[in-house]
Each structure stands twice: as C-alpha cells, then as structure tokens.
C-alpha cells in the first residue's frame, strides 16, 4: 500500500534523525525512493546511515510503529492518507507525514472562519501580549481555531486566549509531540493537549533545533486562512510565516505599532506593503467573516466612563488616571470595579488598560482625562 511507503520512509527518518521530505521529492515520491536501487540512492546523495535504514524499513513492522505512537497518544497521517489535512497539500513541500496529538478531532479547512493563525514576537511588549490574548480569545470563542507556534510571547498569549474561552487551538511544533518546548510552556502544552491539538512533521523524540522553527512556520501559514501578525521586529520569524502565507495566497493582517517603534517595525512594514490592519476584535471579525463582537453597554457611572476615556489613549498607572489632586482610593476602587466588570485589565507592569473596545465619550475631557 502506498501509505505504507511514506510511513516506512518516515520510520527511517525517525531512526536516523534525517528529514526525509526533500529526499523523497527528489526521488519522485515515497514508492520510488523505497524501491530505489543502491546506485540510485547513492546518486541521490543519501548518507549511508539513511540508505541502510531505508533498506531495513522495507521490512519494518508498520503496525508496531503505529501502535507505539498510539501509546503516547500520537497518530501519524501520511500524504497518501485521505485524512491528510488538505491545507497542507497546498504547500509546495508538504510534510511526508504529520504527527497529531490532542483532543481536537478535526483539523479545520483553510477557509475564512475555519482557522486563524496568530503569531508574533517572542519578546513582546505588554500591549502586544494583551492584544494577542484578546484576539485569540475572541476567535476561539467564536469557534475559529487559533493556530500558533507555542513560542514564548505572542504565540503563547494567543493560545492562552483561546484556552481562556475553552475554544479550539492548534499548536504547530518544531519538535516531536512528546517534547514540550520551551520548557516553561509545559503547563500550556498540557492544556492545549486537553482541549486542542498539537501538530508536528517530526516524529516523537525529535528535539527542538533552530532550523526546525522556520520550517514549521510554513505549516502555521498553511493551516489558517488568515494570518495575524502581532508585533514583529524587522527580520522576525513571524515575517517568514507571512512570506509562506503570501505564497499560499492566505490573508495577511497585522496589528500596527507606534511609528518608529522597533518592536513593531516588522508589522508596520507588513501594513506598508499591503497587509490588512487589525486593531481590535471587530477588525478581525471582518477578515474572519464572523459576527462583530457584541457591544457592551457602557458603565452607568460617569466617573467610570471618564476613566475609560483616559485609558483609551494609553495604558496608565492609577496615579496617572487619578491625575493631580485625584483621590487615589477612589480611583483604585473605580478601576477595580471596571476590572471585575471586564472593562479593564492589568498588564505585567501594573498598568490598567482597556480589555474591550471602548469608544471615548464625546464630552469634553473631564478632570480625570486631563493630564
């Protein structure tokens, strides 16, 4: 059977640590590679160890390999398998096989409203983290799977936002599905496995390596119809993902940053070259073709509205919100109530920031906004 051939090559790859995708393509397909004579293998420039494993793999017990995988909760789908994600077939170099682990039964199609990829800096600003989390929560809350790379920073925030709403999320890994990398995200990885899905083109046991992350970015780009880049510096890995998305004809949108901000040089550059601009949930809703977020009725308290007006400019410490002569106690109480009501949130530096879209009231700036 043809699926068997691909799987046998994957087994040989797993045993030698060599990625068989490129070799297979050069050989003209899994069957041809598997059936190739010794001279042909030599002409293909294969390392001896791989050629040897390939010969052994012709007789390998495919069922045992699958059983071993199943024991660790991982399934393997090869290109020959009808269950192979159609999204990945659109790649010019689709993985020979993907390994899946997790609770999510189905990989959504790369159609608008199917999945959205949210990627960005590993060293984000607090503002970037917040918007990534909000967008992740919004999309997943509407049933749109959030695809990302589980890296530090924006990736983790996007997954985290999706998990907050118990929505679908897919982590595309640059290592085996049995490795939680970075180690700090072990907890996050477990939560993703509980309700989402982890995908990797590398067999279990493959350690993370620098060259595997750019490679997995093409899978992220392929799996989602829309790619959202939240904060990327110039020459960020997220821009590689954007290049792949462009090749695949996916929608690319970016969250803008301040002019001249080095943290947003990459995203602002994307917007300059024509990427869509997403500032909040309603912007994203348009791209995903889903309903805009519901409007929350503004707080009845005029003082509270003034506080929200003040925060719509930029995140602020309570002292900045209160302004000169304001009561620190009163301001803190207002902020806490708004936080409990879901209007504001606090970032890692302790600043309060808007947690949902707020249209500043038309009234002239009150004392709370003047500064």
């Amino acid at each position, binding site marked *: 059977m043809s699926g068997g051939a691909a799987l046998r090559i994957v087994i040989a790859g797993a045993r030698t640590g060599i990625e068989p995708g490129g070799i297979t393509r050069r050989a003209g397909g899994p069957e041809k590679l598997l059936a190739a004579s010794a001279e042909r293998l030599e002409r293909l420039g294969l390392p001896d160890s791989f050629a040897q494993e390939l010969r052994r793999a012709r007789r390998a017990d495919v069922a045992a390999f699958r059983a071993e995988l199943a024991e660790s909760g991982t399934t393997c789908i090869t290109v020959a398998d009808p269950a192979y994600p159609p999204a990945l077939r659109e790649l010019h170099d689709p993985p020979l096989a993907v390994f899946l682990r997790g609770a999510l039964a189905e990989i959504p199609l790369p159609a608008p409203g199917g999945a959205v990829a949210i990627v960005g800096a590993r*060293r984000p600003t607090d503002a970037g983290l917040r918007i990534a989390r909000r967008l992740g929560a919004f999309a997943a809350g509407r049933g749109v799977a959030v695809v990302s790379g589980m890296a530090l*920073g924006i990736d983790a925030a996007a997954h985290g936002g999706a998990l907050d709403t118990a929505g679908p999320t897919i982590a595309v890994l640059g290592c085996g599905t049995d490795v939680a990398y970075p180690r*700090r995200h072990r907890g996050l990885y477990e939560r993703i496995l509980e309700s989402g899905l982890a995908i990797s083109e590398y067999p279990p046991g493959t350690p993370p390596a620098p060259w595997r992350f750019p490679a997995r970015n093409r899978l992220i780009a392929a799996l989602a119809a829309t790619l959202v880049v939240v904060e990327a510096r110039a020459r960020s890995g997220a821009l590689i993902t954007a290049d792949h998305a462009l090749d695949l004809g996916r929608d690319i949108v970016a969250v803008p940053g301040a002019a001249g901000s080095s943290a947003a040089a990459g995203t602002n550059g994307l917007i300059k070259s024509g990427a869509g601009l997403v500032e909040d949930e309603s912007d994203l809703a348009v791209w995903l073709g889903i309903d805009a977020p519901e409007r929350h009725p503004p707080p009845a308290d005029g003082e509270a509205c003034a506080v929200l007006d003040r925060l719509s400019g930029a995140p602020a410490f309570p002292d900045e919100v209160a302004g*000169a002569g304001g009561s*620190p106690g009163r301001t803190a109480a207002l902020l806490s109530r708004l936080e*409990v009501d879901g209007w504001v949130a606090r970032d890692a530096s*302790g600043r309060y920031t808007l947690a949902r879209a707020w249209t500043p009231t038309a009234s002239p700036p009150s004392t709370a906004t003047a500064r």
Partner: protein
Amino acid sequence: MVARALTLWLTGITARRVDVEAHVADGVPSFVVVGLADRAVQEARQRVRSGMTSAEFRFPIKRLTVNLAPAQERKEGSGFDLAIALALLAASGQAPRDRVARVAAAAELGLDGGLRPVRGALAMAEAAGRVGADALIVAPGSAAEAALAGTVPVMVARSLRHVVDILADRDEPDPIPDAPPAIAAAVPDLADVRGQPRARRALEIAAAGGHNLLMTGPPGSGKTMLARRLTGILPPPGPDEVLEIMRIHSAAGLLAPGTRLEGRPFRAPHHSASAAALVGGARLRPGEVTLAHRGVLFLDELPEFNRAALEALRMPLEDGEVLVSRVAGSVRLPARCMVVAAMNPCPCGLAGDPDRECTCPPQRLHAYRSRVSGPLLDRLDLRVEAPRADAHAAPGEATSVVAGRVARARRRLADDPPAVGDDAGTLLDRAVEGMLLSGRGADRARRVAATIAALEGAETASADHMAEALSFRGAAA
C-alpha cells in the same frame, strides 16, 4: 579560700544567672578560668589582673582557679570581668564575701580598673530580680538602661575600687543618670516624598492594619524613601513595647551606652544577608527580623535576596517569633514586625517605562519575577506599583497628619473591627469567579478592606472599600 560572685549571662535576649567561684590556693602561681569560657572570657584574666593592680588591690600570687557555673554551657564575652575580680578579691579577703555573693555584677574591666558597659544591661537587670540578687552593679553607661527594668536596685560604680567601697559601705553609688534618646530615632517626614499618591495610600493602609507591603517600581521612584518614613506614621510604641525594643537592641549591642530608644526600629538588611543574619543564629544573637520587632523590616531588592534566607523568614512572619537552635543552645526570640519589600519591575528597571525600552531578555525577566513568588509573597498583603516619580509633583501630606489617621484606624480595628458587608462580599466573589485572585488572595483582600473601612471610620467594609482592596493584589506575574 573559696568565694563566690554573681553575674548574668546573655543568651538571645534574656539573661541567666552565672555563679563565679574563685579558689585561691597555695602552689605554683597560676590563673585559670574553667567552665567552657571562650576567648574573650579567657582574656578577662589579663584585664582582671591589670584592673586589680591599677585599683591598688593586691593580685594574689597564688594558684587561682575561677569556675563559671553552670560549667557545661558555653560562655562568651567580656561581661564576666567584674564578677571574676570581685570573687578573687573576696577569696583573698579584700572585699566583703557575703555581699559579693548576693549582689550581681555585670561590667567589663578596663586596665585602669574602671568599669565599662556591657550589652544587654536591661535584660540582665530583669534577670537579676528573677535569680534572687539583692542588687545589680553596673558601669555608668549601663545605668539608665538597667534602671528601666525596675526589679532590683541598680548600683552605679565608676571603678573596681568604687565597687568595693560601696559593698563595704564606705561610699555611695553614683546617681542614675537620665538617658538622652538615641539620635538614630529621628524619622524623616513624609512631606519630603513628592508624588506617588497611590504608594503613599498603600503605606497608610499598611500602617493602619499592620499589613506587609510590596512596592514595585523603577530605581529612584521613592520606594526606599517611603519605607523609611513608615515608622513615623505608626503609633509611637507604648512603655512595654519600648522595653521590648530596648531589650533586643541592647542585647544585640546596638544601643549606644547611656541612651534610650523612643521610636520603632527600622531595619534594612542588605540583600546579601544570610538566613542566619535575617532570623538570628550565630552565637544566638538576634537576627534582623527580631531587631525589627515592633517596627519595620525593609527588604530592598527583594528578588536579589538569597532564596533560603527568604524562606527562613516565613515562620517568624507567621508566628511572630523565631526559635533559633544552635550548638550553643536554643532561644526563642520575638519577631513581630511589619515587612516592607521593594523590587524593580525587571532586572534593568525599565520594564513598563513609557519612554525607554527594557532590555531584559524574557528568560531573565521570568527568572527575576519568579524569584519572589512563593510562600513569602503570600504574606505580603498589599502590593503596589510605584512608577517613575514626577520630580515636580506637589509634596504630600506630612507625617503628623497621616499618623493621626493611622492611630484612629488602629483604635477602631482594635475595639470594633469593621465587618465585610454583603456588597463587598458579592464584589469579592465576582473577582474570584473572574479569576482575578485566588482563595488566599481573597482572604488578604478581606483583611485589607476592613482596614480601609477603619481608616474611613466606617462600621462595615463597603463594596468601594473592597474594590480598593482588590486593586492592591499586585500585577499579574
């Protein structure tokens, strides 16, 4: 001939009785001190010999044996000098034996026969009454402190000769001098701190409720200035508290001889402090947490502290006392202090600064912040951010104004603490449901809300009080 003198020996912050026995016998002239005496006690032999000669007593050229009983416990320090000299004088018939045996003596001898103060005079005076001494002889520098105990009569003597004359009823002790307050007690005024209204508010709430406080802010934002002013807004210590504080500081040798303490202690150990330095240990001397008893322990640069040292602080903060066990024995030391901790938002101090960019790699930032998590953090009720200070902000209220409010709130909390109202409870429940804080965090919020209500003079903590209390739970780490 055997004679006995009485002295007191300090372990931790309490004193115990030590009997000094002197035996003068014929034989090869020698002078030995037995009874697990350390180096300083061994050196007493030289001071005693010179002191006696200078005071124009005869130093017996005989076989002299001095025993410090109980003999099985290690003793250290120079406080045994006077008692050793008196025992030898009594044994050689130069001082009245019966009086020497009943009067406790605690002073160091100078080579000229003069008396010098020892640390822990207050604790010794308290113990003197307990162990049945008729009186306590001290150097002039220890007099005022020893007299505070009010247990046995304190006899102030200038020199060894003076002591013997007093015991033989040939002379009167010196009058007990009034002690001037120690200069270190001056606390700077809160009015010096510009801006930081929220951190000031947190300081006031902490003072009113005795809550531990964590301030996070960049270098130069005024965290240390604020912390140093906390003792000023706390109510002045009562007479009993002053005694407790003085007993500790005197035992640690931190009280300048002849002075008294008036304010509450403020201790700011460097972040390189070891666990023993913080909770006490080496030679059973009090650690920083005990020295800060009834006052403030300020931990600047909290994440830089050794993890084990911070862990060691946990029990004292919970129990208000610390049990220190070493080879030399074990002592229980009081440790009821407020903790004020300060930290930068990140190693470079610039995280969250709107104008400059933080350069800390994420791993380092994570490591920095995770260093303060855990058991100690749970005991910091109030957490507040102190952002970069505005140098042109108006000066704040003066210490006296804030202290007045704190004192009133403390009385209310002591007499009739405000209960948490229904509205406040509902708000707290919603905060817990919204995962803004944990169960333990909810307990903290309840306590803080009650304090805020007491500061306002309210009988129950309202939803507004609770809302403000929730704002002090600290940034998401």
